[in-house]
């Protein structure tokens, strides 16, 4: 168990090297072991102060697990550890070609219900975006391991766009399926 949960970073918490590649089984194992120590259920008879501490620690462990499990969140966190904040909104400079592609995706999604087989189209789009985003992940990992901070940051910003689009597709598919079922 790490010395102090609240001052450990997410990698230290699960005794992992700070890297894009993580062993998710190990994350899960450490997650379970830590939960057994700090979860509020273990402190029902404790003082209010201990209860509060248990809640803070468990919240931190939960956030750590969620962050390391999600590739984009993990990548963003890696840069955060290097003191780089991704989400500065006043930075809008971005690869124009990429932005055009994104706009096209958005437009197609807006009109997807008019297509012949919208569910099928959505599945196709989702597959394409996922495979493109997997490639971007690899590019990010390479840039990050090589210490190219600006480049890795650029990849994450693109990945965030991709992620949003994939999420939107999932929501749309769910809505459409419900309509068909309903």
């Amino acid at each position, binding site marked *: 168990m790490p010395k102090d949960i609240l001052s450990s970073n997410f990698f230290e918490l699960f005794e992992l090297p700070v890297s894009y590649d993580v062993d998710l089984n190990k994350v899960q194992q450490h997650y379970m072991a830590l939960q057994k120590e700090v979860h509020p259920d273990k402190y*029902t008879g404790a003082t209010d102060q201990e209860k509060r501490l248990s809640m803070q620690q468990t919240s931190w462990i939960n*956030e750590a697990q969620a962050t390391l499990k999600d590739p984009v969140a993990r990548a963003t966190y890696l840069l955060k550890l290097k003191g780089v904040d991704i989400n500065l909104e006043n930075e809008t400079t971005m690869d124009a070609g990429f932005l055009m592609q994104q706009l096209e995706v958005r437009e197609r999604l807006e009109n997807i219900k008019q297509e012949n087989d919208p569910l099928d189209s959505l599945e196709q789009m989702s597959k394409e975006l996922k495979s493109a985003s997997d490639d971007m992940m690899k590019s990010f990992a390479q840039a990050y391991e090589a210490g190219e901070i600006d480049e890795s940051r650029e990849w994450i910003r693109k990945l965030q766009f991709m992620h949003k689009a994939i999420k939107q597709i999932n929501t749309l598919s769910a809505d459409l399926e419900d309509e068909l079922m309903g």
Partner: protein
Amino acid sequence: MALIQIAEPGQSTTAHQHRLAVGIDLGTTNSLVATVRSGEVDTLPDVDGSHLLPSVVHYGKDEVHVGLTAQQYSVSDPWNTIVSVKRFMGRGADDISAKDEHYSYSFAETDSSVPRIKTRSGDVSAVEVSAEILKNLKQRAVKTLGDDLSGAVITVPAYFDDAQRQATKDAARLAEINVLRLLNEPTAAAVAYGLDTGNEGVIAVYDLGGGTFDISILRLNKGVFEVLATGGNSSLGGDDFDFVITQWIIEQAGFSNIDDPAFSRLIMQHARSAKEALAEHDAVSINIDAENGSWQGSLDRDKLNELLTPLVKKTLMSCRRALRDADIDIEEIREVVMVGGSTRTLIVREMVAEFFQCEPLTSIDPDKVVATGAALQADVLAGNKPDDEMLLLDVIPLSLGIETMGGLVEKIIHRNTAIPVAKAQEFTTYKDGQTAMAVHVLQGERELVSDCRSLARFELRGFPPQVAGAARIRVTFQVDADGLLIVSAQEENSGIEASVDVKPSYGLSDNEIETMLRDSIEHAEDDMHTRTLREQQVEADRVIEALDSAIASDGDQLLSEDETEQINKARQVLVETKSGSDVDAIEQAIKQLEVACEAYVARRMNTNIKTAMQGHSIEEYAPEQSLDAKAAEAKVEE
């Protein structure tokens, strides 16, 4: 209190006192209470031997009836007989929809946002009605087990939102029950089932009760129950089955005067009986004979299935979404556990089996499985099983967010995030010179404020005027292990803060609860005296027991004859006083005995620590030391 501390490290002092903790399934149709006794978990019956308590409350002229007695009034006095009240927990007046009009009782016109039901004993809220049910179960437990309750785990549908959870906790407070934890019903069922079979892997719990539907996907691994995703519908259940069958009967029979609540409740009862009978028979005859109309007809299983299929399909949609959220393929589901009385309906079992491609498990009584799981968790939380490896990791069912410009919702915590959780997000001002900001807290999946549930509003005021976009307002959402939310906001440049325990929108205010509690206490002062007396007597027994066991182990080595005599004297006084009924005298006698033992206790502790450290390396104690260090750090922070 000093006496309890004289244990050998690593050993318990005296026989650990078993704390009476129960699990309560507060259901739409029926409620149950269960507890663990000498390692066995049982639901507790009432004096007539029946385990299920119908969740029905009747407000009579002079008294309130709960359960079967109340149910007997549902046809003769429908206006004052409240059924399915769980549907209205945490709901606002605006939520009472046309669908709810088939309940015979009527809602009072009030300016309050909390709907109140008209009864002859005045208007009552859903929280108060639920508290009556809880009080009844509490009494049942205390009577059966002969001891006072130290706490209860109360189950709620996993899909309950924050307002509904708060309302449930309020009801418990009103019934004077200490809530150890609000536990999601499917999780409770998984505990009962998982511990029963020792299964590992991913399972689905399909829970269709009287008024709510829940689906949960869980991973079981070495005593840890990890909820991966949960979904459902908090206003869909067996009551809706009864409703569509009732509508069908009305249509077939051509009844027109169904405004009479007694008549419509009679038809509803026929509908329910027909549904239940069709679980065993292919067709049933229905025979309605009343002043308002008569009808003879029959309903067969095919027709029933046709009526119910659209409702069951709705539940399967939620299942699909939960699987997607959990990122689990249907093939990965090892078992499907069926919970809730409505899963007895055959079409439900058939469609669930087809959807999950496996035969659903129905081995545990679907009515009792939730209370059973809750009792197991209550036993752990009460500290009766200090070495228990069981642990439940749950998630929040619906996303939480705040309103931003344009009536849109910005999500701060997404649904199916593991709890407890704390998340912060920064927002800024919209206009130059803005010095206040309204925080509107919402729950739900939709993008528009108007499609989500409003949980609370509060304002952050008095931060210094700055140009638009310069202020930095950090909004923090914290959800505890019960799934309840606290929101705070801080303007970071100035440090101005505001926070709110999310609750007042649809619950009772703290003041209302206090008043109600005070009223009930004033009427029950005698009860109070009996209770405090009993508490002091238990405390006296505990102190004597601890002392006896200490003296037996090292009294002859650590005490002089004179000291032994002093202690025995004080002990004798306590033994004599505790059989009387003077609470203060008993308390005094305990104190006297503690004073007499002071030196002895200190001597024992020193000896024990020395003995404990011999033959042990310091590392063995390191974890505890670091824990203490952490506790100390936290104190400094405050």
